[in-house]
């Protein structure tokens, strides 16, 4: 044993000498090992501090391939523009949603004072694409099925063959049918673009794409070269024909939907005019400005909500509706009482006077709010879109159609079932007889004009969601509104409805062939010819006063 001890001592001595000689290099070695253990993730970080897109791209590639647990949060932060760097201190920091700073290298909270030159790591479109692809492959196994679905979609788009192993694993583990289908499609997309994949696999992949049946699938099929094996080519031809048929069918449905949507916008803009022009016979050139006032009312309401009660933003339109009706209606009544009532029966003077009023209103709004566009936000329930079969339906258009329907029904009901409506119809059909039975025609005139203007104001609330809110907003709608009312038949609400929808749908079916400019001209020519044949529009109203 003592011998052993001595031996041990000698060994220790030898080791000590060994260490003394080798210490510097050993430290280096250990450091290198530590670095290697920490992985390429840490190595990649300095690439994010140079503010160069190509360095960021290289670092991104390294991070996503590092396998580090920190990679996904880092990429997510980069995507959300929460990743910051300091070029001086070569530090990369993640800013959390609640404003705290984390050290990207460790994932721990950052201690000490943040560097003075901290700024966001900048992105361009190429980087955003790379980032989506990288995040896609990293989140394929996420717990949230929606995240997995998004991940599958971004893999479908990136078609990166390197994600295949992860994709296979995710596919085997996937329980959710929707996500599973998306994963299958992503796999098919990769197989289709991989040149050396077996022909049988390709045929199966093409079948998956055929069932997807949309333009993205079509785009993928276009990439298959003409020198592929014959059975693959046959499958491609069959799938393409299938998708084309599918797309053509949905294209028609989509055109109908667009036409309906445009028609509802036209109807909304014209329905107030159908009252003032159609029922009262006043050529109201300031009608568009009532729409504009409604839109500006929405803007003001949203401004107040934004500064005082941010939580109410989703209700801003609901609050704006009655206000817009009141504002535009009050202005309408004021115009009727101060100008138009002196001009009944003198259409030319009315036209000029109301046109002048429209200019005054425009300039007044320009003076009050400035000439630039005002931002009117979409509440959350009005933004975005969803797929219905093969067409994309945007929420704002859907709600506007629904809303137009409600306004139309309410107006129709009002005219038919209320006393005011009855009196309005009486005055329209025979003014002197109505006056003789005791209806105060002057009051009815003012109220009718106010009602038409108020409805134009409501239309402004809806139009603020799809058009820009500027002093010129109304000008764009005045011609179209007159067209709808004249085409549909003066004095008839149903005529306005049919007229608006016909024009909307005709416009949308012409546009793909003729282009927007020619399409519009074609519609105008059609209306001119139609008016030649039927001067009173589609649904002419019969009445003694109308004849006069």
């Amino acid at each position, binding site marked *: 044993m003592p011998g052993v001890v001595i031996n041990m001592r000698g060994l220790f001595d030898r080791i000590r000498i060994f260490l003394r000689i080798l210490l510097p290099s050993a430290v280096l070695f250990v450091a290198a090992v530590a670095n290697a253990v920490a992985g390429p993730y840490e190595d990649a970080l300095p690439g994010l501090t140079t503010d160069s897109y190509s360095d960021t791209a290289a670092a991104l590639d390294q991070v996503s391939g590092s396998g580090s647990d920190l990679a996904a949060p880092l990429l997510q932060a980069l995507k959300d523009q929460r990743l910051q760097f300091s070029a001086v201190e070569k530090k990369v920091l993640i800013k959390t949603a609640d404003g705290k700073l984390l050290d990207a290298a460790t994932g721990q909270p950052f201690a000490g004072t943040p560097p003075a030159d901290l700024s966001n790591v900048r992105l361009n479109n190429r980087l*955003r694409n790379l980032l989506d692809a990288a995040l896609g492959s990293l989140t394929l196994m996420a717990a949230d099925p929606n995240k997995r679905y998004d991940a599958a979609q971004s893999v479908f788009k990136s078609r990166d063959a390197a994600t295949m192993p992860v994709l296979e694993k995710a596919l085997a583990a996937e329980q959710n049918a929707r996500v599973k289908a998306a994963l299958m499609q992503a796999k098919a997309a990769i197989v289709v673009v991989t040149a050396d994949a077996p022909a049988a696999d390709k045929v199966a992949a093409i079948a998956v794409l055929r069932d997807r049946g949309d333009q993205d699938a079509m*785009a993928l099929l276009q990439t298959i070269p003409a020198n592929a094996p014959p059975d693959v080519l046959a499958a491609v031809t069959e799938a393409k024909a299938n998708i084309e048929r599918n797309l053509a069918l949905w294209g028609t449905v989509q055109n109908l939907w667009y036409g309906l949507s445009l028609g509802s916008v036209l109807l909304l803009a014209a329905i107030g005019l159908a009252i003032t022009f159609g029922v009262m016979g006043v050529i109201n050139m300031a009608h568009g400005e009532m729409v504009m006032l409604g839109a500006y009312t929405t803007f003001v309401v949203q401004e107040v909500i934004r500064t005082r009660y941010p939580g109410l933003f989703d209700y801003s339109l609901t609050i704006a509706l009655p206000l817009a009706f009141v504002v535009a209606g009050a202005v309408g009544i004021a115009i009727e009482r101060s100008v138009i009532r002196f001009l009944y029966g003198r259409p030319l003077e009315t036209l000029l006077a109301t046109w002048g009023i429209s200019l*005054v209103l425009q300039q007044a709004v320009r003076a009050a709010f400035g000439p630039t566009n005002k931002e009117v936000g979409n509440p959350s329930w009005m933004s975005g879109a969803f797929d219905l079969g093969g067409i994309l339906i945007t929420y704002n258009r859907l709600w506007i159609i629904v809303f137009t329907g409600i306004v139309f029904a309410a107006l129709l009901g009002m005219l038919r079932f209320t006393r005011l409506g009855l009196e309005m119809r009486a005055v329209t059909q025979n003014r002197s007889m109505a006056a003789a039975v005791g209806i105060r025609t002057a009051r009815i005139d003012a109220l009718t004009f106010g009602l038409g203007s108020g409805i134009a104001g409501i239309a402004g609330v809806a139009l603020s969601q799809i058009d820009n809110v500027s002093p010129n907003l109304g000008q764009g709608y005045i011609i179209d509104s007159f067209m709808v009312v004249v085409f549909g038949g003066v004095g008839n609400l149903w005529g306005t409805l049919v007229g608006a929808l016909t024009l909307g749908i005709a416009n949308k079916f012409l546009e793909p062939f003729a282009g*927007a400019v020619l399409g519009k001209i074609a519609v105008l020519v059609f209306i001119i010819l139609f008016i030649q044949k039927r001067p009173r529009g589609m649904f002419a109203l019969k009445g003694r006063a109308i004849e006069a």
Partner: protein
Amino acid sequence: MNKSVHSAASRPTARKWLAAAAGVAMAAAGAFSPAKAQDTIKVGVLHSLSGTMAISETTLKDTILFLIDEQNKKGGVLGKKLEAVVVDPASNWPLFAEKARELIAKDKVSVVFGCWTSVSRKSVLPVFKELNSILFYPVQYEGEESERNVFYTGAAPNQQAIPAVDYLMSKDGGEVKRWVLAGTDYVYPRTTNKILEAYLKAKGVKEEDILVNYTPFGHADWQTIVADIKKFGSAGKKTAVVSTINGDANVPFYKELGNQGIKATDIPVVAFSVGEEELAGLDTKPLVGHLAAWNYFQSIKDAKNAEFIKAWQTYTKNPKRVTNDPMEAHVIGFHMWVKAVEKAGTIDPDKVIDVLPGTEAPNLTGGISKMLPNHHITKPVFIGEIKADGQFDVVWQTKDLVPGAAWSSYLPGSKDLVADWVTLKCGNYNTVTKKCGGSGS
């Protein structure tokens, strides 16, 4: 009916109301009182303050007033104060010519800063030629023009459209292979798209990979066109949209893009007429990554720019007031004019026109712009991506300043033409026939 009684009773009210309305209209028309003192140099401002173009042009009027104010603080020009004469052509093209005549003949202004649309510029050209005055035109335009009396401080197509397309073809821009050229239906988009089509074809892009689409002014329903763009973009090749859509139509266009979920990473849109001012009316979060090509962005980090923005926001008393490219063009043009007048020692238009080529003035992005013999200037070109806050992040820029070319070398009708007002004294000299007076296409 007893309407007459009513109307008689309230006629005074109506008259008063009309008088008030007239007052408002006159005040809005900007009828500034002319000629306060004789020892001032008058500067004409010809920008629409009402009508469709007021959205863009009002800011330019304010810019010139601001610049005059600054210059007067420094003691004016040639020892005299500058005095602005503001008129409102009301977005009405023939009225532009009338107001220009009024400025030059009646108010005797020594220079005019004005116009936005090409059609308004074309409308005032004969007036400036006839009365021999000077016009500084600050907006990017379609080129194919060079007049002795006009100085173009905005971008010619080779200073905006061509570099933007080059960027999109590069690796960073996404190596775009398929192009949608979408524009409003008037002279600027049509000429620009003609040049771009010729350029793209020269670069080997096939006919079927170019889709040209025009829409009327103020087009509001973009559903079909955006769906068409989406369809065109899913042919398996990287697609981009080059937008020369002008004015109000941009807002519904971008809204529809956002709603139909077309992201910049799928189909980027590069716009030539959308700047900070136009984005002010939009929720820009869905638009992040879409592009704009300009010669100036408010977000460019430069000491001169920071100083200008600060002074501008102080002058307008609005800490959020944005700056934009045509404003910068006016800044450059104004300083060039001041320098030229001081060098010439007179406001005589002939002498100032002779001195202007070669005059240099700093731009707001760190360079020195120079007036060229063809009456265009040298400018840097920037490509910016829209950020979530409505500003632009510059993702690409030219190394040097690009000299503006009056005549495009890609159009058959203009490739042999050069403009040179110094040696050749000609705006459209044909280098093949060696004659002045060739025509553009």
